[in-house]
């Protein structure tokens, strides 16, 4: 079969009005079905004719999945809430600006106007071998094209790689992990709730999926507890271009500091492994220490323990180290203004 791209093949389209209807469709069509949220990740797969679902379940018309509400001092964000809605929401901005920052640095204005928070955390990796339709581990094959002596892997993993060296590209995911968010999942058996850091899976657990979401399940909402509201936040994303590009590395941290000392902290990074990583070793090492440059230096060094460089991504090790350092110790600004 010769290969052709850029013509979206026909599929049957459903636009269920409720989550129940959607779940029924997923149950009925099984692996033939594809869930469509904002579509920015999906349309690439479909237009490339690499993924060929018979049925697309478009969640855009389903009720109850969009919007942000206050729950017990925290927030519940419907999975179909757009990134723009997240960024502009007064409660997010006021109490959980970490998420607003991460979401605002994703992609481009139009993508944020359409892309959803649920889609952003559930998106597939952008490994350019895998996205080219090459039959790698992640695509059901038995090779990782990005991890060969001749591979080009500047944007690939330095941590927790297991056969596959792809990375998770989400900008909102580390923010949600730092905020101790919970993912609300609905499936045929009802609702289950998983912690944000457990929502994502590495290749060691499942080499063909990015999240714990099963094919017959839907992410319906994200809950952010009030715990970290108004904490000291740090988000930074490093990318080649200031629009559209996925992170080379990003970092999200929430800290509670009193008397100059770190009382509590949650810190997560992305772009370095197949799932966003919560840096628990860093967290435990810095608690009780002053939130200063020296603690930052130490934290940065801990963050990169175990990091392994591929042919072209050694830079991610100092980059991760420095971003973690800044997240904790702050950035020493230049004296000049430019």
């Amino acid at each position, binding site marked *: 079969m010769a290969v052709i791209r850029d013509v979206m093949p*026909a599929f*049957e389209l*459903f636009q269920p*009005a409720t989550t129940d209807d959607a779940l029924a469709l997923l149950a009925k069509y099984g692996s033939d079905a594809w869930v469509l949220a904002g579509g920015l990740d999906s349309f690439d797969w*479909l237009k490339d004719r690499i993924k060929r679902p018979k049925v697309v379940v478009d969640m855009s*018309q389903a009720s109850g999945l969009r919007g942000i509400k206050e729950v017990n001092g925290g927030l519940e964000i419907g999975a179909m809430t757009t990134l723009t809605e997240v960024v502009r929401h007064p409660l997010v901005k006021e109490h959980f600006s970490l998420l607003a920052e991460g979401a605002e640095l994703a992609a481009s204005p139009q993508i944020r106007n359409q892309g959803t928070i649920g889609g952003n955390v559930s998106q597939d990796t952008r490994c350019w071998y895998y996205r080219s339709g090459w039959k790698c581990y992640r695509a059901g094959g038995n090779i990782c094209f990005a991890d060969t002596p001749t591979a080009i892997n500047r944007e690939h993993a330095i941590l927790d790689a297991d056969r596959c060296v792809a990375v998770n590209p989400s900008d909102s995911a580390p923010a949600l992990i730092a905020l101790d968010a919970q993912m609300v999942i609905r499936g045929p058996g009802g609702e289950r709730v998983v912690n944000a850091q457990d929502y994502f899976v590495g290749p060691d657990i499942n080499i063909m999926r990015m999240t714990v979401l099963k094919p017959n399940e839907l992410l319906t909402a994200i809950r952010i507890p009030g715990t970290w509201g108004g904490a000291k936040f740090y988000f930074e994303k490093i990318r080649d271009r200031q*629009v559209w590009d996925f992170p080379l590395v990003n970092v999200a941290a929430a800290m509670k500091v009193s008397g100059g000392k770190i009382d509590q902290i949650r810190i997560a990074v992305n772009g370095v492994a197949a799932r966003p990583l919560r840096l628990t070793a860093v967290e435990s090492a810095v608690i009780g220490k002053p939130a200063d440059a020296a603690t930052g230096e130490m934290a940065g060094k801990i963050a990169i323990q175990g990091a392994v460089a591929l042919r072209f991504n050694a830079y991610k090790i100092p980059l991760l180290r420095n971003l973690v350092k800044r997240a904790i110790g702050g950035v020493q600004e230049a004296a000049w203004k430019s």
Partner: protein
Amino acid sequence: MAEMKNPEETTKTLSRRDLIKGVIAAGAVSSAGYLFRASGVRAQQPSAAGSVERLVTITVNGQQRRVDVMKQETLATTLRYKLGLTGTKLGCDRAECGACTVLIDDVPHYSCSVLTQSVRARKVVSIEGLASADGKLHPMQQGVVEEQGFQCAFCMSGFIMSAVGFLKVNPKPTRTELAHGISGNLCRCQDYDKILTALLKGAENMRRA
């Protein structure tokens, strides 16, 4: 042959019955459609909760347009190939250039990455919907003319729609704010300086209007 026809006119002359007949008859040709016409590879028509009709009504530039839409059809395709609104351009078809930007309920979207089926109940405005019926340019368009913004202009419709959409949220942006607002649009002539000046002029015109 070779007589150029405006597909928009063709659509208008077709009765709804003709269109429905075109849909029902397998492999029939609806002369309004170019990209998706007689196709041997269509999926079966099922019936289940949430299933969608092929014949839909969408509101484009203030007009209700009845159109036969494939399930996988993007809004850009419908606008360009079914409704003859070719001012919306396809530069990448992958949400990474912005040439296809239109407003959906006043919000800028990449029409290459929106299923037409998902905008049935929503208001779509394309570049053709900005000028008034008597041909008077929208103040944003006027700003671009005044400042000779853009070079090849293939990106222009998308930039203008992004700017008009952004100004609904921030009507008095600084130069930097507007640059961020229209940053989802790529110009390969890279005439960004003149573009930004022109769109700022348009914003000023809009505030005066």
